[in-house]
């Protein structure tokens, strides 16, 4: 039973098994990385703050986001997806998370950055609870591997507060 077909089959199975094993080892190597990311977010300006016709509050703001996420990159990192979410509580909702800005960081060199931007996605409440609302701005990052398990973590920055009145 040493036909070409038999040998080809055995070889292919072996190759795929080794491929899976190498992928698993590559993924495991990521566990040895102990990252030390840092970030700061400032709200530069509240551009406007209105109650929309559908009854929900909406706000537009400009932020300054700085971060150093270089320590998240390993040789098994394909890219890092990073986003800033405003998180707050209301009477109706125990948790509201609204993504305000996101970016894809393709390489380690791009991971130390400074960005000044208005919110990319609309900051709309379910209702009109935003006046005087205290909220956190949390920087989340998702490390997407070339192969294996994704790593997710975040940095919570609290102490932000929305204006008392519409403007």
């Amino acid at each position: 039973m040493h036909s070409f077909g038999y040998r080809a089959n055995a070889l292919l199975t072996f190759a795929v098994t080794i491929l899976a094993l190498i992928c698993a080892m590559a993924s495991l190597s990521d566990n040895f990385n102990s990252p030390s990311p840092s970030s700061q977010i400032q709200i530069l300006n509240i551009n406007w703050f209105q109650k929309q016709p559908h009854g929900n509050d909406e706000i537009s703001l400009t932020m300054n986001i700085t971060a150093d996420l270089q320590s998240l990159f390993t040789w098994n990192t394909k890219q890092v997806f990073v986003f800033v979410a405003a998180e707050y509580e209301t009477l109706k909702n125990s948790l509201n998370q609204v993504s305000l800005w996101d970016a894809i960081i393709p390489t380690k060199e791009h991971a130390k950055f400074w960005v000044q931007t208005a919110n990319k996605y609309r900051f709309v409440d379910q209702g009109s609870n935003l006046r005087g609302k205290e909220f956190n701005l949390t920087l989340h990052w998702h490390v997407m591997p070339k192969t294996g398990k994704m790593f997710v973590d975040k940095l919570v920055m609290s102490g932000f507060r929305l204006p008392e009145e519409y403007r």
Partner: protein
Amino acid sequence: MGWIGDTVDSIKSIQIRQLLTQAVSLGGYLFLHMSKDPIRAGEIVVFNVDGREIPIVHRVIKVHERQDTGEVEVLTKGDNNYGDDRLLYAQGQLWLQRHHIMGRAVGFLPYVGWVTIIMTEKPIIKYILIGALGLLVITSKD
């Protein structure tokens, strides 16, 4: 590839036919897991929209969780898309609920799915393969 997909009950694996983001290139295997943990912003979820046969694998960008019932309403968006997924949802639907979501992506295995994709895109290869296997079975002296 039964032995790869042959994992714990709660983990399903799904083939990426369309590009999720630049992160998972065509032919990659995406491992899904559905736990009871609440859905949070940033997670990549798989969901079905009524009337569409292919499930969509996108990221959650907004979460609103009710105080009383604990139910969530989420909004998703593909990383590389300009706008959110509201255009993809059913007519008049603004949010996804828990029951729309089938799983969360937790890891990737690249290139593994190429064989199946090639066989689906170019069915002739499927016939050639089956023909060759059939030939092997007939001609092998066991």
